[in-house]
């Protein structure tokens, strides 16, 4: 057997290890029910902000904690404790992805991704005359 063949086998072995490693490293998208059924596992949960309930951010007390209520795709609502600063523009978010796990009744997340409405699709609101354009800039 040639040395290059040995090298080849080693390469394939590492490649398989990389695939398995990556798959085991990646979490899965889930809903709250699944996440609360498996409290120790990490999940990505997709949902929307419940705008009827208050969000809590008291940076003076703890700048790294932000609490809100999210409704997942199955219409299950949970209290979410995000261990980060409150994202700028949070109220504008259309869709939220939180990454974390269930800990006693609440969902504790350490990462958040938000999808904000892109102005691209909302038609006429975006049209500005040159005067308006200058106006907004002068005002700012």
């Amino acid at each position: 057997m040639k040395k290059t063949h040995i090298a080849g086998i080693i390469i394939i072995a590492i490649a398989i290890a990389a695939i398995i490693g990556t798959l085991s490293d990646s979490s899965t998208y889930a809903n709250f029910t699944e996440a609360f059924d498996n409290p120790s596992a990490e999940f990505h949960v997709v949902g929307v902000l419940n705008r009827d309930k208050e969000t809590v951010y008291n940076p003076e007390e703890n700048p790294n904690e932000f609490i809100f209520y999210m409704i997942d795709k199955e219409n299950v609502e949970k209290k979410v404790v995000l261990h980060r600063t409150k994202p700028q523009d949070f109220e504008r978010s259309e869709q939220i992805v939180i990454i974390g796990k269930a800990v006693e009744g609440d969902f504790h997340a350490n990462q958040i991704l938000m999808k904000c409405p892109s102005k691209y699709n909302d038609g006429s609101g975006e049209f500005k005359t040159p005067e308006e354009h200058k106006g907004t800039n002068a005002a700012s």
Partner: protein
Amino acid sequence: MEFVGEHLLIGKIGNFFVIFSFISALLGAISYFFATQKNDNGWKSLGRISFLAHGVGVLGIVSTLFFMIFNQYFEYHYIWQHSSSDLPLRYIFSCFWEGQEGSFLLWAFWHMVLGVIFLFIKNEWEAPVLAVFSLVQVFLISMLLGVYFIDYKIGSNPFTMLLREHPDFMDIPLFSNPNYLENLDGRGLNPLLQNYWMTIHPPTLFLGFASTLMPFAIGIAGLWTGKYKQWLKPAIPWTFFSVLVLGVGVLMGGAWAYEALSFGGFWAWDPVENASLVPWLTLVGAGHLMIVEHKRGGVMKSLLFLTFLTFILVLYSSFLTRSGILGDASVHAFTDLGMSGQLLLYLLTFIAIALFVFVLRYKKLPTNKKEEEFWSREFWMFIGALVLFISSFQITFSTSIPVINKIFGSSLAPPSNAIEHYNTWQAPFAILVLLLMGFSQFLNYKDTPLKTFYGRIIRGLVISAALSIGIGLSLKMFNPFYLFMLFAALFAVFGNLEYWLKFLKGKIRYSGASISHAGFALMMLGTLISMSNQKKISNNTSTYDVSQLGEEFDNKENILLMKGDTLQMGDYYVSYIGKEKQGVNIRYGVDYMTKNENGSYTKEFTLKPQVQLNERMGNVPEPDTRHFLLKDIYSHVTWAVLEDKKEQDSSKVDVQTKNLHVGDTVFLKRSILIIDSLRQTNLSRHAELRSGDIAVEAALTFWDFNTDKHHLFPVFVLRDSSKVFSIPAESEELGVTVSFDRIYPNNGSIDLTFIEKKTDQKEFIVMQAILFPYINLLWLGCIIMAIGLVVSVKNRLSGSKK
């Protein structure tokens, strides 16, 4: 309806150039194909004419589009979407390639330039190489066609897509006005992209992408024409040119991220970053194998594989970023223009071509009967290329999770901590590459007696080992894995320096490899030290304890700074001094001070991280970094109150009215006040007053909790003996507004209304600051690597001419 003021002719000219360059590319591909197949000069001349015509066409498209941006023809969707009337001229290039169409055009432009250069270097490879180039251009220009083929729209054409005909906008009332152009301004370039990086990064990166076509096309040409080995000679200099430009392009992206985006570093393993890094890795592998094949032979198959793979990975990366498949997984991805089918076809066609040619000629490819020796340079260079391949495989696989989901219908989420995931996997590969870089060149081609080899590397090994222990101790790096990587990087630096000085006698001409290797190793050294020793100095000092939730939620990275307070952060004392608004940016000034022995502070510097009020992307924080020779202090705002709320929201304020006499004391939330006196106001002091008014002011003295004195003078006015009103006085610092509502002449008492902000609404920001030690090593390494590659390309060029 007739619309007034539209410039429809220029669009037709642009569209003509699109069709012209598409057809000429198609003609070029066909002519050059037959020129190669039949070895016929007539076909070849036709091909040449077609490709040059194609060049004229592409230049025509580019100039027309520039002309339209320059003259602000907002009736065109592309121009409206990417520019506006108040955009500074220096961003005109950025407007050009902000959108997908423009970036395709940039890519096609570079292919055209490289193809024309190749055409003018008269050589035997012209026909087959330019046949491949032309075919690539056919696909690229088709992305700009914007025509319907049955029901499928091919490409997106910036010249024919008028704003009023765009499906998103055609129904809006504006377009029922024939003079709509008078009232139209462009949407403007995304403020986030309004910086010089957007001017230099895309053209460099796209030249890098475009240049990977060169080795690919020459390789295909070699197999096609049966010159299985001769193709290497012209391919090698182009390959290293490509390594240089693509490498610089990718690193510029990193520098941009570090300077202007709030990733908290220069590399975040974002899918788009990965997609541009991966072809670079395989290209470097291919380049090294080319040298092995050139000197010794025996690696032709692997080298062809990596060369073809590189270009295919470039196409794949373009598919990933432009098809919308990454969705939310990346900040960079373009919006989907519905061209994913076309992009996929482009990708699959070239996979098919590469596979077909490879399989067809597989049996005829040169091989070495004899196996290479274990202690030979070529063997270890081969291993190096394999390591690079595996490394790129791992990155590609993890980045492709959204694609895997699409194909198999799974719901895998990307690794939640991408940076940790990739670092864990890639660090061992980096160590292997660094070690290989350090010792391989001390091996001769063919075989090396072990004793000689040990003799050559022992000095480098000892020096690097001693230095890594020294550096490790002084920087308190005790993680054995990091220490090993430190050693590997130092060994690569010293090994290459020594090889250059001792074996190459310091000759510049042959120094390319040594210099670029040393540069790469310095880069890794800088990465290792700045990443592993980076310190989040903004530790939250609040007493709130989250540790009962476990380590992973124990986040203390962000610190709250009240305006005027001074907090310790690392070696500094920091103080938030206030915000200022400039255009769309709000800049938050933070003073960094050191404490003197007598307890006073000395200001060292001020950082002004900012938040950009960006309508399109949401509000985006931008960091500010103070650069020192040996460290950087990097900081960004993670939360702040963006706007001053001038209007007083009733839920946020307390209102109380009190009946008081002169000399009374009032306790407020943040101050104590005494009414000193009542007196007639000088009418000229307030613009609201006019002659005939009777105006009385209350002189109030406030003491805040620092026992500083403040004075406010609210005014009570009687006009025309019937109308009464108050001119209130406000102190922002004390968070109070006082209005003087009434005077009771019978007992001399007065009514004052106090409007106070409810809680302590003192201004504050939440921010993060990171200290990156020795990050300049990284940038130094980048520059040195680029210099080394320039030397290599020059040397290889003069070598290939001989």
